[in-house]
């Protein structure tokens, strides 16, 4: 491939710029941070702020962030338990939303399967309406809600997340079954915020940081905040002072792989303690309007257990009524499957008919197919066992031979060259995770 000289030039440039600020000798060489969400969300931001703080404060030489998105973090959790067990140089961002995800998506793994390290930050939730809304106060809203619950649509983040949990807690507190909350789940802050601003839903729930700019600009009217007392500089009445005994925050925490004990655990705990005290971390908290909710050790374990009970309880009540009403199965999936089967059958008939006149047309193509199938199977078997470089070289070499078997040595050289270059660029320059496998010591 002719792409290589250019990739190298850029690789060198990136290395220079990235490596320049970290010259001092830090305590820990490498700490990987896993964000069980896509780039851009709260967990990803937490991970990237940690990366900055750890590197700038000179606590860790390099702290690459790895995104494993999906299903409120439960996909990341399952992978963390499976792939990282026994490792001591990796942490994952977690929190309340993952508790919700575990319940909602019936995750087979839970937060009891990993080592809890510490709670880091918290964010209070705000209930707000657009300024044009007829609801002036929380009382107005709750009056309409208790009269006919379904007429109020609550917009917020994904199902089972902190926003829905708070909606459920509010309903429970005013004596409405949470299963009657007409909760409209949106993906991500941007989508739900635009639906709330545009008046597409009756009322919105979101974190204070996301609502604050809109409240300052006067486009949203806050009705209540979930903190225990009024926050300085935030002129929003609490739920408690409006008669609802609810205190609630969307907290984010850190976990380590299963079975981390003794000195290894103490080492990570003291690293986190040093990080939360560092200047870059304190600056970042202010910038993102996160509350410092650092809590470690047994106190955190007790707190997490209490939160788990609460989340299971309220999400259980959401689901409870819905199964009783016996909602009919959605027609859409079955329509699609019927369409697929019908057109597939028609297509198969056409193909069989047109093939009857012709002789079977396999022949010279068989050897390449076998080679390619072998290449794919070997690649999959080797990828996480022997590492990316070997697996990719095998795939390249066998695939090249499927096209032209005359140059095994040339093909082999290119196969190894390309695999090594790709590995170095991704894993060493960009710090994306690729399995190193058998060659871990060499690369």
């Amino acid at each position, binding site marked *: *491939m002719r*792409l290589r000289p250019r990739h190298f030039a*850029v690789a060198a*440039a*990136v290395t220079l710029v*990235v490596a*320049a*600020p970290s010259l001092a000798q830090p305590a820990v060489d490498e700490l990987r941070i896993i964000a069980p969400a896509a*780039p*851009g*969300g709260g967990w990803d931001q937490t991970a*990237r702020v940690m990366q900055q703080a750890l590197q700038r404060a000179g606590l860790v030489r390099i702290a690459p962030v*790895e995104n*494993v*998105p*999906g*299903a409120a973090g*439960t*996909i990341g959790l399952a*992978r963390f338990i499976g792939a990282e067990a026994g490792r001591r140089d990796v942490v994952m961002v977690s929190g309340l939303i993952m508790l919700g995800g575990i319940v909602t*998506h019936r995750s*087979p793994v839970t937060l009891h399967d990993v080592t809890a390290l510490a709670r880091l930050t918290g964010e209070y939730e705000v209930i707000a309406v657009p300024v044009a809304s007829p609801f002036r106060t929380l009382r107005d809203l709750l009056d309409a809600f208790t009269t006919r619950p379904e*007429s109020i649509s609550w917009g917020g983040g994904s199902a089972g997340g902190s926003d829905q949990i708070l909606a459920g807690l509010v309903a429970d507190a005013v004596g409405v079954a949470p299963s009657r909350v*007409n909760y*409209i789940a949106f993906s*991500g*802050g*941007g*989508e739900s*915020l*635009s639906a709330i601003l*545009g008046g597409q*839903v009756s009322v919105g729930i979101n974190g204070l940081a996301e609502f604050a*700019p*809109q409240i300052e*600009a006067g486009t949203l009217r806050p009705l209540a905040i979930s903190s225990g007392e009024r926050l300085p500089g935030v002129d929003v009445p609490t739920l408690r002072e409006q008669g609802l005994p609810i205190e609630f925050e969307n907290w984010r925490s850190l976990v380590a792989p299963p079975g981390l004990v003794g000195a290894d655990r103490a080492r990570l705990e003291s690293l986190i303690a040093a990080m939360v005290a560092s200047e870059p971390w304190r600056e970042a908290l202010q*910038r993102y309007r996160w509350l410092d909710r650092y809590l470690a050790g047994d106190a955190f374990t007790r707190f997490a257990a209490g939160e788990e009970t609460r989340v299971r309880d309220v999400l259980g009540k959401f689901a409870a009524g819905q199964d009783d009403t016996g909602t009919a199965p959605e027609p859409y*999936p079955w329509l699609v499957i019927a369409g*697929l089967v019908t*057109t*597939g059958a028609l*297509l198969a008939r056409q193909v069989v008919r047109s093939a009857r006149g012709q002789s079977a047309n396999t022949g*010279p*193509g068989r050897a390449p*197919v076998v080679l*390619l199938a072998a*290449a794919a199977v070997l*690649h*999959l078997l080797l*990828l996480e066992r022997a590492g990316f470089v070997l697996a990719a070289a095998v795939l*390249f070499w066998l*695939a*090249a031979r499927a096209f*032209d078997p005359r140059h095994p040595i040339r*093909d082999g050289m290119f196969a190894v060259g*390309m695999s090594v270059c*790709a590995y170095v660029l*991704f894993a060493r320059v*960009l710090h994306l995770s*690729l399995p190193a496998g058998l060659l871990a010591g060499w690369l």
Partner: protein
Amino acid sequence: MHTIELLRDGFASALSWAHLLWALAGVTLGTTVGMLPGIGPALTVALLLPITFNLDPTSAFIMFGGIYYGAMYGGSTTSILLNTPGETASIATAIDGYAMARQGRGAAALTTAAIGSFVAGTLATVALTFFSPLLASVALRFGPAEYFALAVLAFTTVSALIGGSLVRGVFSLCLGLALGLIGIDQLTGDARFAFGIPQLLDGIDVLILVIGLFAVGETFYQAWHHGRDAPEVIALQTFTGMSREDWSRSWRPWLRGTAIGFPLGVLPVGGSVIPTFLSYSVEKRLSARPEEFGHGAIEGVAGPEAANNAAAAGVLVPLLTLGLPSSATAAVLLAAFQQYGLQPGPLLFSSRPDLVWTLIASLYIGNVMLLVLNLPLAGVWARVMLVPRPLLFGGILVLASLGTYSLNSSLLDVVLLFVTGTIGCVMRVYDVPLVPAVLGLVLGPLAELQFRRALAISEGDLTVFVTRPLCATLLAVSAVALIAPVLFRERRA
């Protein structure tokens, strides 16, 4: 005019030799990393942002502009040359771009993509400069019902891409729709068709399907055919840029692509698949030679590429005026703004006009840099097609696997890649079109979700789709788009 003065101040602070170098560095890094398989624009920006943290705000914003537009552009190169789209925005480009590259016209395809991106990016940035507040307020009027209507409108584009056989086209579409059923039902949080496999909870990533069907499927198909047909000989055209005919066939698609891409980019839902494919089907409908589409029609590259970049600029409208991040990339940018004490939201323009206008000025500069960087390289990149076939296809498979694995670090994704690759090969053998499957996977879940959201808000009242004027209009337009070609054809016959 007030805006023009502010913009001039923005340029005044952005234009210096040092800043231009930062812009060039940003565009180069953005394009290069964006070109790597499996690293979409959001991850590109997230990876490169730490570099800017050591700079003063103005230099950093200049570099953001470069990185953002560079990352959005980078995907089209691999799409055209290797049939391996790096992100959803460049799927439409791959259809005719790769066909052009196979005919030795890769340089022309890359050039029309680069100039189209420049034209669209610049026009869209002008629109962003002058009409942001107005556009943002219109975008807020889009609720679930309107998004459903928009998805229906996008579905009508499938009819243009279905090809000769209705059964084959609908089968492909249903395959995509069926794959789209897999994963968590967003409204209830229940898993559907996940078969207890945690990695399937989040559904099948459209990129895996695309790389599987297009890149891996094509490789398998070529290998299966190898030895039966004489291998095609690729002769690079001696002229490495666009011919006069290419120019006259490209400029209208650039403008139409911009007109389609920008407003749809402003809407906070839907991503870049809808604008690029709408542009593609509009070009096919309007073309005097619709039969060339799929076999190297330059309009099929020019339109979607322009739409893609115009949409990228459109995404910045809700971000800058309302503080709404409507894509993952925008969310990463938003986090970067906060590094400099810029609180995105409705007050951004009034609280820190200096930085905002510097950012906007740097978007213009980034666009120019993108053109400066990529025009000379088009001829160089096009030579990739001269790499001997065994090495080219071996390389494509490795890049496909690398890109897929780095999406989620999941081995199951790589298994799915080879499975969809096999399906893609079989579909090629039996002449089943691939694109309807991709559109089905993207649009099916979107349409279903918005339809059910709209009904939940209206408490099950179906009339929302006709009583909301915007929604009714969109549905009427889709009906016309679907019926008109049939009527015309009958009249002609």
